[in-house]
């Protein structure tokens, strides 16, 4: 069987349709290019009633929303998870990295938390403060114009706070806090923990006539059929299709490698069509990889040939290295004052209405990098799991736990919405020894060699997690709550395994020195000038922020540079 060559030739091939691929596609289509978007999963439009889960009740499913197949619950809009059938990955030396993949148009943007935080001036230059990791070759002022443009194009609510490292943007007005968030604020502020309105990419006010206003159903994780939240499909790919360029979608198409010619130029990609299981070659003048940090590293490493014996763009040997995820650990609490609540519609937006940005100075602490705190709770829609251990909280009231009979009905009602949770999400230090590489022993069902991971947390992260838990307990005490479960007091201090926060970045980091980095500051491979990377691979450090807004700002910046290079015929 030979590789089938597609007749269509493209200016640009974009691999992946998530935040980075979507933004590249939008900007390049606005500039009039002919683009192929190659996506490993199926077509997906949040508006399609066949696949829509938004506004479904638990009783409309025989499993009532249980997460037996989709790991975050069956109404979560991600076709994927930590494990994909037929697409394994492995680990080295007993270390662990959890790799979340979503195979669908728009990728993980269909279900993400919409938390959209700019990196601040300090985040780009962390090494200047603590000597760890590496500085970015760019600073906040380089990215600021693009953050501004992303705010206006995509829409984000928030409040102007004037905080140095939490730069303000062009915000829509934020929604008022829910009751449990007010409790959190009360407790946090007593400990000097800053609390401000959340910053989420959800439309509390119109930004154009194409997308509707938020209707406050709290279900952004199901992907909004009104396009009131940000998903790459609804906000970038579909508008790109209606823009100046030509955008062809190749879905269910799994890219194996980037092809190159003898002049060291990329010529396109080879992909496997999942429907007929045949290999296809797609030709393009430029390849933009945005398959997600680890998938892009995998494609580069699998693109090795005699000219690129270590894989494409890997003369530094750093492809796959400096992989890092946000740190994360959580704690719940029961608030007796919130028992027997009056019921009202408290769905709100799909996520938190308040949060705490990092508020301390690491120079005065025993760990180098900060974290932010997310808060959850409220009168949420019941789902599989609601009513489990219906009166376990009786333990804290000196009452009997267990039993049967109609008193259980009262227990469920009494405790509903009286539990609050806090999640610390922090910056880890990027380490060369945390990496993914090709596992020569294993291929996936498409015959493509898979990744294996080597990742360990260090004391930097463990001490940070310990601080998170100390802070949680203090805040819980301050608002009159009772901490649930035991406080982790040793080992990893409750740190979730790397990968669990799904903020993996850094596998193709940017820099000025080709020996110490994979791409330049415009996310162009040092080694091959017509290959760009616009997922989170080029991140030098993660910051204590969620990566999506920065992925999009940088993808836009990279695309502007690419357009300029094409116009000047430098590529």
């Amino acid at each position, binding site marked *: 069987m030979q590789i089938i060559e597609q007749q269509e030739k493209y200016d640009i091939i974009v691999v992946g349709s998530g935040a980075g691929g979507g933004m590249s596609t939008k900007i390049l289509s606005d500039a009039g290019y002919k683009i192929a978007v190659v996506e490993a999963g199926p077509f997906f439009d949040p508006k399609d009633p066949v696949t829509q889960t938004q506004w479904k009740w638990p009783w409309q499913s025989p499993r009532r929303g249980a997460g037996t197949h989709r790991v975050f619950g069956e109404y979560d809009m991600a076709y994927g998870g930590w494990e994909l059938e037929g697409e394994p990955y492995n680990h080295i030396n007993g270390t662990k990295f959890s790799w979340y993949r979503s195979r669908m148009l728009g990728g993980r943007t269909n279900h993400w938390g919409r938390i959209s935080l700019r990196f601040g001036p300090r985040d780009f230059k962390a090494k200047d403060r603590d000597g760890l990791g590496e500085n970015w070759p760019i600073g906040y002022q380089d990215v600021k114009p693009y953050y501004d443009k992303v705010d206006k194009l995509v829409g984000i609510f928030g409040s102007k706070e004037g905080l140095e490292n939490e730069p303000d943007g062009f915000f829509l*007005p934020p929604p008022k806090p829910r009751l449990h968030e007010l409790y959190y604020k009360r407790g946090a502020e007593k400990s000097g923990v800053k609390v401000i309105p959340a910053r989420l990419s959800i439309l509390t006010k119109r930004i154009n006539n194409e997308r509707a206003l938020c209707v406050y159903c709290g279900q952004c994780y199901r992907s909004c059929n009104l396009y009131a939240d940000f998903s790459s499909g609804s906000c970038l790919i579909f508008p790109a299709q209606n823009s100046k360029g030509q955008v062809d979608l190749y879905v269910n198409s799994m890219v194996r490698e980037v092809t190159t010619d003898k002049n060291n130029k990329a010529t396109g990609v080879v992909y496997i069509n999942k429907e007929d299981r045949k290999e296809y070659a797609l030709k393009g003048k430029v390849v933009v990889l945005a398959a997600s940090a680890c998938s892009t590293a995998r494609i580069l490493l699998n693109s090795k040939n005699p000219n690129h014996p270590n894989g494409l763009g890997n003369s530094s040997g750093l492809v796959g290295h400096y992989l890092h995820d946000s740190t994360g650990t959580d704690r719940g609490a029961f608030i007796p004052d919130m028992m027997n609540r*009056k019921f009202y519609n408290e769905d709100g937006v799909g996520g938190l209405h308040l949060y705490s940005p990092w508020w301390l100075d690491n120079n005065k602490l025993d760990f180098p990098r900060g974290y932010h705190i997310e808060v959850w709770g409220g009168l949420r829609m019941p789902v599989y799991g609601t009513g489990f251990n219906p009166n376990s909280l009786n333990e804290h009231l000196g009452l009997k736990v267990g039993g049967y009979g109609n008193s259980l009905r009262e227990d469920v009602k009494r405790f509903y919405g009286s539990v609050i949770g806090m999640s610390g999400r922090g910056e880890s230090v990027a380490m060369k020894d945390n990496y993914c590489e090709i596992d020569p022993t294993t291929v996936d069902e498409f015959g493509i060699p898979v990744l294996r991971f080597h990742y360990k947390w260090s004391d930097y992260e463990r001490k940070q997690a310990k601080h998170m838990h100390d802070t949680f307990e203090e805040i819980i005490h301050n608002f009159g709550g009772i901490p649930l479960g035991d406080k982790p007091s040793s080992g990893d201090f409750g740190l979730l395994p790397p990968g669990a926060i799904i903020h993996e970045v850094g596998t193709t980091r940017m820099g000025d020195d080709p020996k110490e980095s994979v791409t330049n500051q415009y996310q162009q491979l040092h080694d091959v000038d017509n290959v760009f990377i616009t997922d989170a691979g080029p991140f030098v450090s993660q910051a204590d922020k969620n990566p999506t807004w920065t992925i999009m700002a940088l993808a836009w910046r990279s695309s502007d540079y690419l357009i300029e290079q094409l116009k000047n015929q430098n590529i």
Partner: protein
Amino acid sequence: MDRRESIRSLVLGSLAGSILLESCANGDSEKLTEKLWQYQYGRTPKELEFDNELLKQQYFEESEINMITMLAELILPPNEKGTIQQAKVPEFIEFMAKDYEPFQITLRGGLMWLNNYCNRNYGTSFVNSSSDQQRQLLDQIAYPDLDAEEQRFEVEFFSLMRNLVVTGYFTSEVGIKELGYVGNKPNVWNGVPQDVLEKHGFSYDDWEGKFHDPTNASQIAKWDDEGNLIS
């Protein structure tokens, strides 16, 4: 667009296929169509195929389903708000046993344990024991020992059954109504009601002007150069 259409016809195609298969098997096509269409919950073709397979299979025997129903009614006795049957709790437990296989041995073994206990102590099955006898039995297994490191099997079994019954009830239409949850519909959030705020000692006064104003939300946002909203 083409692809979307083809996905849609694929979904319809696989549904139609299952209906056809089933109707050949038991000749009751109308009932089956109803069974398949009562669940519309955004499955991919593959997920739908999987679920249809489970819906076609029967794990528990009729006698076991009767026992589950009886137990469920002891856990949440029927009242004017709703019943176990209205909440389709036995069907839900039947489905979960197939969907999550680790439940199977605990549930099936637990039902046997109950019969075994009743046979030994009361000389008859659980179903045929008197309600006093049933309660006497449940009183021994319905209260976990919070200080113990591990629970006896029958306590674990009853906890699982209680969890499935209570969650099955409160995720049903009658259960959600009884609970009083009033969301899952388009609306406008404008904060916690005033009486609730007051009861808990909160107010939005410190935040004046910071929050979204539903009255001008439909107006397209414009900002000055400093990022201040001016529309």
